[in-house]
Each structure stands twice: as structure tokens, then as C-alpha cells.
């Protein structure tokens, strides 16, 4: 590698590539801290397909739109949620609930983009997901593994957008066992021979193309990947070492393991983790389909909140539970509900989020389209960023030379704790 310049330049280059973890730790391991002093992380439990607000956090039992879903009381006085979530109900006092989210996107891909980024899809500019913004605005030090990780299969994962591909999440399709593509095909002397040959070949190529080859950062990326492959922090991707009781509490499902891995990654210092649970696009058989997913989500979410609290990580970790939109109040002839971006629900907990708050309300008769106290997806982004200690009003210059705010909304009044 031919690269010249001062230590500062090297630091800047490494930071820009997202390989700052290759550098010696500049200060004590932030990951070891606990409580409020810890750098903040974000766990997003993504309910792909558009979860019905009426079957989750905003039921209307006994009404024409409520269907057979029953409601149960929670630890937030006066608030009921769907009875499929008894364990979450016992812990809801740690959360706040928004029941009046509004988006203008009723298509899965566009809706996912809107909620993940806080912006509508724009053909000219690709916006970064919240997780990418957090990794960009609060880069970790001493971390060998990527700062933004996505767990589970997801058709429309978060992206680095205008921040660049290096802020795309590291995707693990089957969480709980190991990271993706981390085990070399060979090892020992054979792997050493391969790497020696590769480095020699790259030096040969760079010999008469020094500056442009250096700009590719090809060998920096290689060395960063190799460092990641041998990092002790990779253990965070596996739940094998976790006690059976803990694994059982999260649930022996891909999503349950993903939530447990998310907690382990937060402990390691990862900034943002998306965990995806599919199966909420219930155009038909909404109630039975939802009940099956609720069984998975209820246990995993409850275990995650307990675990984060027990380990004194909840104050530094924002947990967001949402999907791309909600579902229609009306029940269609197939016993399903269709897409509904006009008043849907999400849960927020941890970090700088105040607990026990309920924002907005939807019409129990389903006649009014707009909810009370509507919260736009841009407001949700601003709220999450504020709870993470990020200046949501900050403008970043995009590659097009157009300044764009981190979030184009305002934090929801009352949701940010002092």
C-alpha cells in the first residue's frame, strides 16, 4: 500500500472507511461502561410487513373494527394492549407508546424507507437509515466489528444512503451462531501463503498507479476484514455460550436469537442493531397470523428489556419496535387487514426516552382517518435521534452538494426524558 501523510491523515482515512477499529484504542473501552455514561446504542425490532396496530399496541375490542382481538391491562395505568402480549404488558411501564404515527407511504418498500430514514423516497438522493446516522454521528472506538448490524432476512434493509456504502449494515441472515462470511476457507500455513501472494500481487499492481490504487483503500479493507475475522468480539454474534434459561427466555427462534445477539452486540459496543421479524403483512387471516408472530415477539421483547435493564444497559440503549405502517381498521372479506399508514403504533424504550407515556389516539370506530396528535415518521426520527443524544437538526452535506438535516421533524414533546 502506498499511502503517505501524517498520523492524522491515517486516522482520518481509517475513520472515513469505518476501519477506525484497526487503530489502537485511544481511550478506555467505552463498551465496558454502564448506565448513562455509556455511549448510546439503538436496537430496532423491525416488524416487517406492517403490523396491525389493532392487534398490538392499540386494540379497540368490542368495536366494529376491533375484530376478535382482546385487550389486557398493562403497567401503564389505564393503558391496554392486545392480549397476545402478556409479557410485554407486564413491562410496558418501561416503554412509551405512540399510537398516532402517520406516513404518506402505503407501499412496503417506500413505507420501509420512510420509517427507517424519516424521509420519503427520493429518486435523486438516497437517505441513510437511523442506524447508519448513529454510526456516522457517534463512531465507536476500539470496536473490531461493524458499528451497524442487521440480523435476520429483510427484503428492504437499512442503508448508508448518501453517507456511503461503508455505513450499510453488516448483514447476518441467520443470527445466533456466527457472523456472516467470517470463517476463512483455509487456515494455518495455507491461508498465510494465500495472503502473502495476495499482498504481493496488490503491491505489484500499485507500483505504477500509486495514488489511485491507494484511493481504492483495497488493502486497508482487506486488513480490516482480516482483523475482524480474528477478533474476540465476534463471540457477540453467537448465543451458544448463553445459559439455556436465557436462550429459552428469548425464544429458540431466529428472531429470539437475533434479540439476544442484539443485546450481546450492544455490550460489545455496536452502535445500532436491526432485528427483523417477518410475517406481519396480513391481508388474509390477520388474526391467526398475527397471533403466531405475537408469540415470538412477546417473549423476545420482554426478555430483551429485562436483560438490558438487568445489565444496566437500558439507560444507554434506545429500543424501537415498529414496522413500515399499520393496517386498516376495516376487516376485509378474507379476515385480513390491508395497508394503513394513517395512524399506526410503535413502542419506544430506553436511552433518553421517557417511560410510561402514551402519545396520540385513533378513532375506535375507524371513521376518522387522521389520529389525534399525529406524529410523522420524520418526528419519530427526530425523537429517536434526540434520545440517542444526537443533534437531529444538524445538516450534512450530501454528495450532490445539498445540505440535508438528519431529521426533518421535531422530537415528540414529552418523550425525551430530562
Amino acid at each position, binding site marked *: 500500500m502506498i499511502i503517505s501523510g501524517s498520523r492524522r491523515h491515517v486516522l482520518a482515512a481509517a475513520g472515513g472507511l469505518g476501519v477506525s477499529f484497526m487503530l489502537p484504542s485511544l481511550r478506555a473501552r467505552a463498551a465496558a461502561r454502564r448506565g448513562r455514561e455509556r455511549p448510546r446504542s439503538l436496537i430496532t425490532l423491525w416488524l416487517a410487513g406492517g403490523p396491525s396496530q389493532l392487534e398490538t399496541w392499540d386494540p379497540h375490542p368490542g368495536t366494529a373494527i376491533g375484530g376478535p382481538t382482546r385487550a389486557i391491562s398493562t403497567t401503564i395505568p389505564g393503558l391496554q394492549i392486545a392480549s397476545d402480549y402478556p409479557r410485554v404488558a407486564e413491562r410496558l411501564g418501561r416503554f412509551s407508546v405512540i399510537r398516532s404515527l402517520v406516513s404518506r407511504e402505503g407501499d412496503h418498500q417506500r413505507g420501509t424507507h420512510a420509517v427507517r430514514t424519516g424521509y420519503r423516497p427520493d429518486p435523486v438522493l438516497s437517505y441513510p437509515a437511523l442506524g447508519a446516522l448513529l454510526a456516522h454521528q457517534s463512531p465507536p472506538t476500539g470496536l473490531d466489528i461493524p458499528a451497524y448490524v442487521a440480523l435476520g432476512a429483510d427484503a428492504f434493509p437499512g442503508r448508508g444512503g448518501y453517507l456511503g456504502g461503508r455505513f450499510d449494515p453488516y448483514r447476518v441472515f441467520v443470527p445466533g451462531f456466527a457472523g456472516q462470511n467470517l470463517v476463512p476457507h483455509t487456515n494455518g500455513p*495455507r491461508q498465510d501463503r494465500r495472503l502473502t501472494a495476495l499482498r504481493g500481487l496488490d503491491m505489484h499492481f500499485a507500483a505504477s498507479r500509486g495514488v489511485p490504487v491507494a484511493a481504492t483503500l483495497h488493502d486497508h479493507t482487506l486488513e480490516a476484514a482480516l482483523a*475482524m475475522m480474528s477478533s474476540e468480539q465476534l463471540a457477540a454474534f453467537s448465543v451458544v455460550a448463553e445459559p439455556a434459561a436465557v436462550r429459552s427466555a428469548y425464544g429458540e427462534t431466529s428472531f429470539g436469537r437475533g434479540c439476544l445477539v442484539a443485546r450481546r452486540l450492544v455490550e460489545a459496543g455496536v452502535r445500532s442493531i436491526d432485528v427483523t421479524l417477518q410475517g406481519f403483512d396480513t391481508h388474509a387471516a390477520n388474526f391467526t397470523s398475527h397471533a403466531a408472530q405475537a408469540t415470538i415477539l412477546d417473549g423476545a421483547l420482554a426478555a430483551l428489556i429485562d436483560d438490558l435493564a438487568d445489565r444496566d444497559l437500558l439507560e444507554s440503549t434506545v429500543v424501537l419496535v415498529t414496522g413500515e405502517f399499520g393496517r386498516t381498521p376495516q376487516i376485509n372479506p378474507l379476515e385480513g387487514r390491508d395497508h394503513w399508514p394513517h395512524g399506526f403504533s410503535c413502542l419506544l424504550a430506553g436511552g433518553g426516552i421517557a417511560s410510561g407515556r402514551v402519545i396520540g389516539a385513533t378513532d375506535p370506530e375507524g371513521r376518522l382517518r387522521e389520529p389525534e396528535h399525529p406524529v410523522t415518521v420524520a418526528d419519530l426520527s427526530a425523537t429517536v435521534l434526540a434520545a440517542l443524544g444526537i443533534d437531529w437538526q444538524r445538516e450534512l452535506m450530501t454528495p450532490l452538494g445539498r445540505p440535508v438535516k438528519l431529521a426533518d421533524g421535531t422530537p415528540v414533546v414529552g418523550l425525551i426524558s430530562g
Partner: protein
Amino acid sequence: MPQSFRDLLPLIWIVAVVGAVVGSVVAASRSTLPSHPWEVEPPSQVTRELAARIDAVINVQISAAGLEPAALAEDVLVLRRMWLALAGTVPSVEELRRFEADSRPDRLERWLAGILADRRSADHLAGLLASALTGNDGGPAFVFRRDRFTSWLADALHAGWSFKGIVAEMVASTGLWTGTPAVNFVTQAASAGQVDENTLAGRVARCFLGIQFDCAQCHDHPFAPWTQTQFEGLAACFATVRISPLGVRDSGPAVLRIETPMASAGAMPPLTTDPDLKKPFIAGRRAVPQVPFGQPWFTGSGSSRAKLATWITHDENRRFGRAVANRCWAIAFGRPWHEPIDDVPDPSVEPGESDLLDILGCDFCAGTGDLRQTLAAICSTAAFRRASAHPGLNDPSRAAAVTTSWAAFPLSQLPPATMISAMIQATSLRTIDPESPLFVRTIRFLRAVDFMREYGRSHPHEPATIPQALVRLNGRLARELCEANVFSGPGRVAGLSQSNTSRLDTAFLACLSRHPDASEQRMLIPLLEAGTPARGIEDLYWTLFNSAEFCWNH
């Protein structure tokens, strides 16, 4: 008699293997078909003259920067560039051997014409254009069929349609997205059953005019002369579009009620709701079809979309030609003449010989409109055939000038689709093309889908990400492709070559399209000598696939 289906499995396997072998032999026997690259007539004298005019512009730039141009690259490396740029893969060992045996003085010109006439080129170019014209996302469900759109584009390009005609079809067609694939250009902007006129206006401006004025949807452009009224007029050209289960049609008055700003998901202005279209509009705001310049070209008897198509492709619309030229330049060189690719500088009052985009654009507008002719001219330039190595590229104070003056061929990262195509081709000694057996093409397709799902997107000038490096280093596909067995290219290289020198040479040709030099032989022969031939060749292919030289076009 066999007792169960399981008893028949060995027989099925034998039939499958025999069928595959016979299929390969049949495919190989077709090597006399006249569409092969080495059998096509070279580009015309007109193309060569156009290339010379382009080189004159670039030579002035290089001299002005006080530089000498890089030496010409080896012919095989130029051939590699042509395949990567125009067909999205590397040449096969079979093709490289044939090229090296071709002693005609104009062999590069002939092969260039041959590549452009190859179906693989049409497929690749169609994929690039489809991404530019409709974006990379999946698009609206049901009404948008990217596969049909891309396939139609490939057919049109392969048949030599004028790009003007292709654009006119895309902008103005009516019909079903499956039966009339051109309408997918319109249905890409469908949302909730109706088309978003603003998305289409922005797309038309960027792709066909080289104007970025999406911002004018909400306000006048802050530092260019484009206004919100102009944008709304362009969007209004699509106001009559209706989408139904029967397809795209034009209906109703050509008046656009102005929707709320699109970029922000935040605060909303006062709205009213259109009872038919169920979309929120700003009360009282309306626009009628109009174009931001060249009013006399906006004519015709059809719909406002048809008039728009006539206007875009009018011979005097230099912005169209310049936008096409800039995109073609990016296809060939991996980066556009002017960046960003869809924000092309305004043309001067009169076309000039010092403006490369005008030279190419005017030739395109005045000619047949076949994109392949423009691409042939660009790939026939000396600039395209220069080496990517240059003495100034080791000097940080001069490297930028070398790059910006096009004194050397620029490095650009292979797009994921090209990278996987190149890896698959490199591990097959025979050419993989539409004549390959069905199972070969099916396996190639499935592998490509898996790879791109995992690899994600990349930008030509951005470094690869660490997860992308991990896919190449440790991914399952990389392991399978490098594996030396009786069916694989690496296995055949290991088994059939007589020496490690020969193995190294063949692997270099397959992966890097060139022969190793003496220092590389000294460096890499030990890798082959360390274990069995099979293990050694696996190590070598793995090394080559992960090298900067393989991952970056150069």
C-alpha cells in the same frame, strides 16, 4: 423393475450428466455462427473520425496540464475493458486465445464491433440503462415489471433500434406492463394505483436532458435558471396517465393539481383531497403541460406525453444528445465525462469542437441514434486504449491532473453484477453466453442472484466495504468457484496443464486477461508448488479474485 423413485435416481443422474455433456458439445459445435465477436466487420471510417475528434479535445487537456499521455495498454487489456464495459464480464480463455491468434492489424476494432453485436452486450447495457431509467429498487408491486422492461430494452438495443425511438416508446406508450414493456418506465412511478407525475418529470429531466431540477418541485432552483413552474409544467405532461388492471392509458384533462412536496415527510401545507385520485393537493394550484425550453419542438397531435417524447428527441435538442453522450462515456470509462452523470453543463450557444459532449451528442442526434455507434466511437479513442499506469500517478501533486485530464485510463470498481459475472466466467474455460447449455446459464443466474443479495451495492469510485471484502474472502460462492474438481475450470487447469508455469498462465488469462510477468511468476509459482496441483490452483484463483487488479477495472 424399480421399486420406487429413489431407485431411479442413479439413472436420472446419468441421463442428466449425459445430457449436459451432449448439450455442451452441441453448443460448442455452433461456434461458426456469424455473431461471434471476431467475425464482425470493424466500425466504419466515420466512427474512427469521430474518435479522432474526441482525442483532439482530450489531447488539448493533457497538454494544458503539462502532461504526457500514458502509453497504450496491451491489446488484451483493452479487450478486457471492452468486455467489462460493454458486456459486463471478462473475456473467456477461449476468446482470449482466439484474440491472441488473430493477426489482423485492426483486430481490436473488429472485436469491438463484435462485442457490441453480441447479445451479452445488449443484456448488459439494458441492465445499466434500466437501473438509470427506473432506479435500483424493486419498484411498485404488480404494475412494474423490471424483468420485462429490461428484456425489452435488450431486444431493442440488440436489434439496433434508435435510442430516440426507445425513449419515445418509454415516455408515450400505452398498454399493459407485460405486453407493452416500455410502459414500465411510467409505472415505475406508480403509487397507490396512480402515477406520481413529479417522479417522472424528475426522471425525464435527469436521464434525458442531464438536468437535475427535482428541487424545483418545491422551489425555484437556488443556483440554476430552472423554476418551480417549469418543473410543474413538465410534470403536467404526465397528468393524463391513468393506471388500471388493463394497463396504462391517457384520460382526462391535461391539468396537474399540485401535490404536496415530496422530499419531506414532515410538516404539510394546507391540503385538499382529490375525490377521484385520493391524493392530497395544495388548494388552488394547477399546472398545464409545458416544457422549459425549445417550445417549437413541443408539437404533435397526440397526448401531451407524445408531444413530450417528440420534444425530448428532437434533433435540435442538444441537451438530449449531451446527456446520452455523458452516459455512454460513463459506461465505457466507469466514470462520466462530467459528474454527476445526470447534471450535464448547459450547452454553449453553438456546438463547438472543443466540447466533447457536443461532439458526441450532435453526432448521436444527427445519426441513426444507435447507442452502440456512440459507444464504438468512445471505445475507439486513444484515450480508451491508454494504460491505467502513468508516472504521474505515483506523484500526489500530479496524480489529480493525470486523472482529470484523462491522460491515463481511470480505475473504477466493478459493479457487483459485473464482478460475479467475471468470477463465473473466469472459472469456466469455455465462453458462457446465450448459446451455453440451459443448466449452465441457470446455475450462473442463481449464483449471481445469491452473490448480489449478499454483496449489496457499490459505487464505482468508493472503496468496497468490509462485508463485501468478507464475501470475496470467505463467501460460499467464492469457495465453490475456486474449487478444483473435474467439472470446474480450476480443476481442469490443475489437471490438464503440464506445469505450474502453464497453470499460472491460464489462471492469469482467465481472471486478469493477461499473462504473468517474470516477477509475478517468481512470486506465485511457490503458491502452486506448496501443495497438490488442485490445492495450489484453488489458492491461486482465490488470490486473483481478491486482488485489486481483478476488483477494479483498469
